[in-house]
């Protein structure tokens, strides 16, 4: 076996690493380089301007406004999604009342799982258009429902006071299904004996969730956390299609700023790359932080 190790490593490791370097790492390095130029993107000419782009960025109110929105998303989207995901997954895995063992799901679990997962099957573009119609201030489902019970409705995406929360709700909605399935899979890997023992000891459902399920799922939750944090720092497609950052920049996010600077209202690729570089470091720090903060003692059950 031993002498066969190197060919194996070389065949299976070198090509992917090469691909990764060429298609992921090198564009990054280029982005860093471009961010120090005033390149306008439609000719090869660019001047080195050092850190001038970053200096402008520091004083750019629109960028700060977008970052603020991303910060709110970062604080809320992962928490809401994970809590909802855990809740639904628990209900599906052990919400049922049947039997003494107590670890059965609610009736029709498979159907619910499909329903929850449904948004995941749709393309984000379709989700955005779908919700734009739901939020239609005159004929939308939401407005009609509120009118139906005699309440007045806001203009949803047309009002800076509500637009941001409308988009946030769609972000959570479109993500929950995936984490229901993810958590559900992780839960089914937990041996039933543990639950049976806990139930025999007389633990309530909530205690079971908090003291047994959650610790056993912690690594999965952490991964979910990191992915959702990255999602919250991006949020580009939904925002771009539903509101394009408006009204009056109330739903703007940093990804939309970058796109708008490069392809939208201006063609400043140097400056857009600077925004991208900032985004890169922000995402990296958030991910590293959430991995650090989330570190717990591992519980082994096998």
């Amino acid at each position, binding site marked *: 076996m031993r002498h066969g190790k190197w060919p194996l490593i070389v065949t299976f490791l070198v090509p992917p690493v090469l691909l990764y370097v060429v298609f992921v790492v090198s564009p990054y390095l280029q982005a860093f380089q471009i961010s120090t130029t005033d390149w306008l993107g439609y000719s090869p000419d660019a001047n080195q301007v050092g850190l001038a782009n970053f200096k402008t960025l520091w004083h750019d109110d629109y960028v700060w406004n977008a970052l603020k929105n991303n910060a709110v998303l970062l604080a809320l989207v992962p928490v809401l999604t994970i809590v909802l995901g855990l809740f639904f997954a628990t209900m599906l895995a052990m919400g049922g009342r049947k039997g003494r063992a107590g670890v059965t799901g609610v009736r029709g679990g498979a159907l619910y799982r499909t329903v929850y997962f449904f948004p995941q099957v749709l393309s984000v573009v379709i989700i955005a258009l779908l919700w734009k119609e739901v939020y239609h201030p005159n004929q939308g489902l939401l407005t009609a429902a509120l009118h139906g019970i005699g309440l007045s409705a806001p203009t949803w995406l047309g009002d800076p006071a509500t637009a941001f929360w409308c988009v946030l709700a769609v972000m959570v909605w479109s993500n929950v299904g995936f984490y229901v399935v993810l958590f559900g899979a992780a839960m089914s890997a937990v041996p039933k004996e543990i639950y049976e023992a806990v139930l025999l000891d007389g633990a309530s459902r909530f205690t079971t969730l908090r003291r047994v399920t959650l610790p056993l799922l912690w690594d999965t939750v952490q991964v979910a956390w990191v992915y959702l944090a990255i999602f919250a720092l991006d949020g*580009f497609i939904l925002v771009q299609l539903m509101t394009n950052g408006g009204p009056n920049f109330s739903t703007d996010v940093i990804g939309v700023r970058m796109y708008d600077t490069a392809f939208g209202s201006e063609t400043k690729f140097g400056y857009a790359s600077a925004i991208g570089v900032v985004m890169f470091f922000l995402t990296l720090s958030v991910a590293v932080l959430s991995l650090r903060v989330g570190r717990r003692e591992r519980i082994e059950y096998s």
Partner: protein
Amino acid sequence: MNRRDILRRSAAAGLLATPAAGLLAGCATGGGGDKDDAETYKGTKSEQNPLGVKEDAPLEVVIFGGGFGEEYAKAHEAMYTEKYPKAKIKHSATQEISKTLQPRFVDGTPPDVVNNSGAGQIDFNGLVSQNAITDLGELLAAPSLDVPGKTVKDTLLPGAVEVGSYDGKFLVLNYTYTAYGIWYSNKLFTERKWEYAKTWEEHIALCKQIKAAGIAPWTYAGLHPRYMSWPLIATAIKLGGPSVATAIDNLEPNAWKSDSMKAAADAWHQIVKDKFILEGSPGLDHKQSQTAWCQGKAAFISCGSWLESEQKDVTPAGFNMTIAPTPSLGSGDKLPFEAIRGTAGEPFMVPAKASNVAGGLEYFRTMLSKKGAQDFTKKVASLTVVAGATEGVELPYGLTTVVKALDASGANGFNWVYNNYYRKLERNLVDAACGEFFSGRIGPAEFLEQCQKGADSIAQDSSIKKYKRAA
């Protein structure tokens, strides 16, 4: 290392792949370095061939696949090959002009003709400041393809050259001719015995009447509120004359806060104050608001002359959409009521580094021939910048009213171009201010203040090239 570690590490590695910064660079830098003119095609100029097209040189045309489709371009290409049968034409259409062509501009191998339009349009300020577009002066001076005794320039409608000119150089051929005004359904107005108002006072009185009849007088695209800046600025220009527009275009200090703009903003604030706008409009996008208008929920909407073809599928039969100029503020107006904003739109360009520049220009000459223009109008129901090209072409109802409105406006027609010079100013900044203003969250003074602030921020941004135009 157990499987949890693997999972965790793969998540961390996933990080590197996620944000879009690398992507941006990845699609942006195609190569670089100047292309030697190894493959530039030149032919000999003659009376038959005034632009010096090389007969067998291939021609590449990229069309924006939007509302006009691409069939019209294929027809123009067929006309081109009729004259140059040996030329091979490569045709493609895309919705994302900017993303598709950006690497090719950097690489120095752009196509010969680009229809730079749509939401994914390349910002012209960026292109012009990088000298990426061919000067079309030679085309203007060339004789028209099928109007004897006239140069191409002589066949164009007034304003067609100005709108595509930057610092006096004609760089962008805007092929369609668009009128911007206020639209209403002639059917609705005839049924109710309403008459379109010529002064602002009458307009407000009419709005009251319409509201009393249970119809909202106005609606607008709340998610693209800049549509409402058009009638507002038009009102100001009609009051104060075209210099109001030149001041805005030239980023003059306090251009947005001129007396005319103040009077116009005050007037338009009335329809917000008196709740003459369809409830919920601030939350509608352009299609949704136009549809509400077609359904008879609102009487007026502000739009350009593309409205009719854009709404083709949802307009009820006999709706008879009609364009009208903005009402006059009073007897002190410098321009008559009939004056309407008319401008050339749908930009085409020949990139400076195109290999077949002469072919590109010749293709434009084909488009600007009477035959080419008529074919376009027939196919997509839109006017072109070629004068008199609608003769003998049967037009749909709305477009007929556009032609009439433009005729009545005549030499009093006006236009502004700050939106071409500084895309960001209209698309982002004025847009945001309009959203606040027409939803009633801010008053006229704050509205103009916010627009002015936006204009000032453009004026102070040294990375944006500035253009000036004469009155």
